[in-house]
């Protein structure tokens, strides 16, 4: 009975915490510009994420190490330092995007511009981290995040042509606008395959003191939770394809995306979108700032626990305090969060090998995982998808930039 509860809670957190500004913006752009054509990217990214999240949990449960701890111990500090730079830079951009997403949701609800929200929002995020516990943050945020299920309702109410949607699940080569097609594909992959999520997940497994008995639970929650989450992003893409694509709206600004559900759910669509983004980005902002703090603390061997009083793990708390404060700065200057989002998602895929290749080494380490280490299937699936997104990223990012 207890296990069933754990599993369902895990799935709820996974689903509620899945969407964030990255997955929504990229899915909306994909649907608006390329109809169902890019659904395959969401599918591919989700499959890869399922494998990676399952591995993160398994590593923590068996070796009692988080990914970051194991990386530092196995590869030594000099290499770890390179990974740290790459990951924290990208994660910081994502944090800016999430804080901006909260600001934008409040902007469309209140009419007050998002730069004004930068300070209060990041203060609130910081306060929750300062006072809150891990359970509160993880469960609370993702329970609120369940409002994102409204995207599915919207998708169903628009009666999409499921047949042609299914066609989108198979990769196809674009007719026109090739550069932008691949760039959006890359940012979708980057939005789905998020290393920070892995760091957060494995740290959570340690905070909840998982052992080998959790392996089946972990497998189940990772699979169900992440696939349902991926299903949510697909719903977003489908709605965008039905609302924006026929009208020739090419979504560049959050204000455009905000109209996503006004046709499917005339009465509540607008508010539901705003609230979905508000809660989703808020949860993601907490998650990502925790992930960054975990990264430093675990890498340097500081005390780290979201459940301790700040003075018991001072350096850990100081890290996320500084990160969150810095995250507010670009928004104060009115940097467009949507632009930050798209770029940070593309950069995520560009930096994926840096995070994932060492991780694959760890997942095959007999010392850490014994008989629970990866099989050839998981290894090849992950590596292939990672290398694919990396190559696509390296090619398409410059093209996109030159294209303006």
């Amino acid at each position, binding site marked *: 009975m207890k296990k069933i509860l754990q599993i369902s809670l895990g799935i709820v957190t996974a689903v509620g915490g899945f969407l964030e500004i990255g997955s929504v913006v990229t899915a909306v752009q994909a649907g608006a510009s390329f109809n169902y054509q890019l659904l395959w990217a969401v599918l591919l990214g989700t499959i890869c994420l399922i494998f990676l999240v399952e591995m993160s949990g398994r590593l923590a449960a068996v070796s009692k190490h988080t990914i970051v701890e194991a990386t530092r111990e*196995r590869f*030594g500090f000099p290499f770890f330092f390179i990974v740290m730079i790459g990951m924290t830079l990208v994660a910081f951009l994502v944090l800016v995007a999430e804080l901006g997403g909260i600001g934008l949701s409040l902007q469309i609800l209140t009419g007050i511009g998002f730069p004004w929200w930068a300070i209060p929002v990041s203060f609130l995020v910081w306060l929750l981290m300062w006072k809150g516990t891990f359970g509160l943050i993880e469960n609370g945020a993702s329970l609120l995040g369940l409002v994102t299920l409204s995207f599915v309702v919207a998708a169903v109410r628009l009666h999409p042509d499921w047949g042609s949607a299914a066609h989108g699940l198979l990769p196809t080569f674009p007719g026109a606008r090739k550069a932008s097609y691949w760039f959006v594909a890359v940012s979708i992959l980057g939005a789905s395959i998020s290393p920070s999520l892995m760091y957060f997940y494995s740290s959570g497994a340690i905070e909840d003191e998982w052992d080998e008995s959790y392996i089946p639970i972990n497998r189940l929650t990772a699979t169900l939770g992440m696939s349902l989450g991926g299903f949510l992003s697909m719903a977003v893409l489908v709605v965008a394809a039905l609302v924006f694509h026929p009208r020739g709206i090419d979504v560049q600004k959050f204000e455009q995306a905000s109209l996503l559900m006004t046709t499917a759910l005339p009465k509540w669509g607008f508010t539901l979108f705003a609230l979905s983004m508000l809660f989703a980005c808020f949860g993601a902002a907490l998650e990502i700032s925790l992930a960054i703090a975990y990264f430093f603390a675990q890498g340097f061997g500081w005390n780290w626990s979201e459940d301790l009083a700040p003075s018991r793990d001072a350096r850990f708390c100081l890290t996320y305090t500084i990160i969150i404060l810095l995250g507010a700065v670009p928004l104060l200057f009115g940097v467009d969060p949507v632009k930050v989002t798209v770029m940070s998602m593309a950069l995520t895929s560009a930096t994926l090998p840096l995070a994932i290749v060492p991780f694959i*080494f760890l997942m*095959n*380490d*007999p*010392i850490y995982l014994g008989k629970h*280490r990866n099989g*050839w299937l998981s*290894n090849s699936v992950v590596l292939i998808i990672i290398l694919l997104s990396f190559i696509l990223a390296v090619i398409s990012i410059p093209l996109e930039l030159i294209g303006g």
Partner: protein
Amino acid sequence: MEIELELLIGRKVRDVDGANVGRIEEFRVERQQNALLVEAYLIGASALIHRLSAWTLVRPIQRFLSAKSIYSVYEVPWQDMDLTDPHNPVLRTAKRDLRHSR
């Protein structure tokens, strides 16, 4: 003399004739009550693989490429290593006299 062991990792080693042997990757030690006694230095790319305990990942690839052994790992007993200049370690023997540990 005192040496910071962590700085030796990755240092190139030459033998008596000045021939390049490889990089120091690992140290095999005997644990004692109040110190670790260095028994041998592991040199070469395979030593790196061993250090990353990555054989389970590398062996299949090796087999797939049907390469007998990608690299040799040299296990140098402490007597044969001269660290008087830590920045360029030198062997007291010739490369050909080294025994492969794998």
